[in-house]
């Protein structure tokens, strides 16, 4: 259990360490930075309210990612989120190659998008992604393979650039 000072420090440290990752995971889900930031704030609010105790930093990060995914899913389900017709995120500030790849990934179904993000951005293994998404590793492997295949169709890529999972 934290005391007040420890909790404040813990939240500050977690914000510094993990908020960029959490915003990007939420962005991969919601395709909008403003919504992603809102969800990330909610995640830290839950952190403050629940005061979870972690075995280590990895455990803490996994809990935060899982919470971000759940809160992003919840936001996607809300009526107001579904009913709105948002302007697509402006990614023109990115170099064209990066923008194309990012747009291609965001165009994927979310069941492929998230494992791809966790693998390619966060560097998690299939087993780790399976643990975070509470799915079987084989299923995660299938999602990754299918996602990669779709991306290859869209943006191409050389055989030797394939990521070996």
């Amino acid at each position: 259990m934290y005391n007040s000072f420890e909790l404040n420090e813990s939240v500050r440290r977690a914000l510094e360490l993990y908020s960029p990752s959490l915003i990007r995971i939420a962005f991969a889900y919601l395709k909008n930075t403003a919504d992603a930031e809102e969800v990330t704030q909610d995640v830290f609010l839950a952190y403050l309210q629940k005061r979870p105790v972690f075995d280590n930093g990895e455990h803490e990060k996994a809990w935060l990612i899982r919470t971000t995914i759940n809160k992003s899913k919840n936001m996607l389900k809300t009526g107001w989120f579904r009913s709105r017709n948002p302007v697509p995120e402006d990614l023109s500030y990115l170099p064209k190659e990066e923008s194309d790849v990012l747009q291609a990934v965001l165009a994927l179904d979310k069941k492929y998008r998230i494992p791809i993000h966790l693998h390619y951005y966060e560097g998690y293994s299939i087993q780790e992604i399976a643990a975070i998404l509470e799915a079987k590793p084989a299923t995660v492997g299938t999602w990754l393979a299918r996602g990669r295949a779709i991306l290859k169709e869209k943006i191409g890529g050389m055989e030797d650039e394939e990521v070996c999972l």
Partner: protein
Amino acid sequence: MKKSVYKSAMSHLKTSDDFQEATYIKLMNHKETMNMEMAKKRRKVTGWTAGIAACAVLAVGLIALNPDSPATTPSSPPTNTATTKPPIMGKVAVNIDGIISEVSADGRSFKVGELWVEVTDQTKLGSSEPTAAAPSEELLQKNFQVGDIVSGYTSQDVSTGKVTADVIYNLIAPEKEGETSEAKPAITGKMAVNIDGVISEVSADGKSFKVGELWVTVTPETKLGIDGPTAAAPSEELLQKEFKVGNIVSGFTTDDVSMGKVNATNIYNNMAPQQ
């Protein structure tokens, strides 16, 4: 897909510059609100606890004060309560206590107040309690007379005005005037009267003095000073040998003060007035 391209794209994603600081401030504000709400809840819980405790105390008090009242809701009709209640078992005993004002011709019944009491063979005479006084001769003879003090009880309905006594504890005849002085033992002992005050007059021989309207004579039998384990030793100052007008004197006599002249039994003090 090039691994580095996706990672680079995501790394370049623009987010709010002050996200971390703004989030931290928002979280701390929320924490403050949470703390206030918790304090409010705690106060509310304390209030409720105190209220419930007070109600419990009141309830216990009411139950303690009305042990016979039904535990069900008081609004239930009285007829239902009467039917559901078990019948009261046992007999109601009514005391017979007072002076006999009338006795029947056969001498077996007497009247106490407005109640006629009959004494039958079933009537128990005397009390079986270990500390009870032995029944009087009058009682044993069933010799009830007007003026006798009687005590006992009946379990019959007294509203009929006539009952049979279950038990007569005792029957005491009133004391007759002639018998009283003979029977009573003579009072022995003496009455002591305090002698307390300022000497207003002293006799020529100096052995008598007047306090108020009483002449007090100090004889060789008069005890001087105060006895007792805690009494101070008599001093010249507190107990002067010579009785003078104005001295404060205290003591007592067992003589009859109505005569206006007594011998002192004991003189505690004979002090000169303070200058």
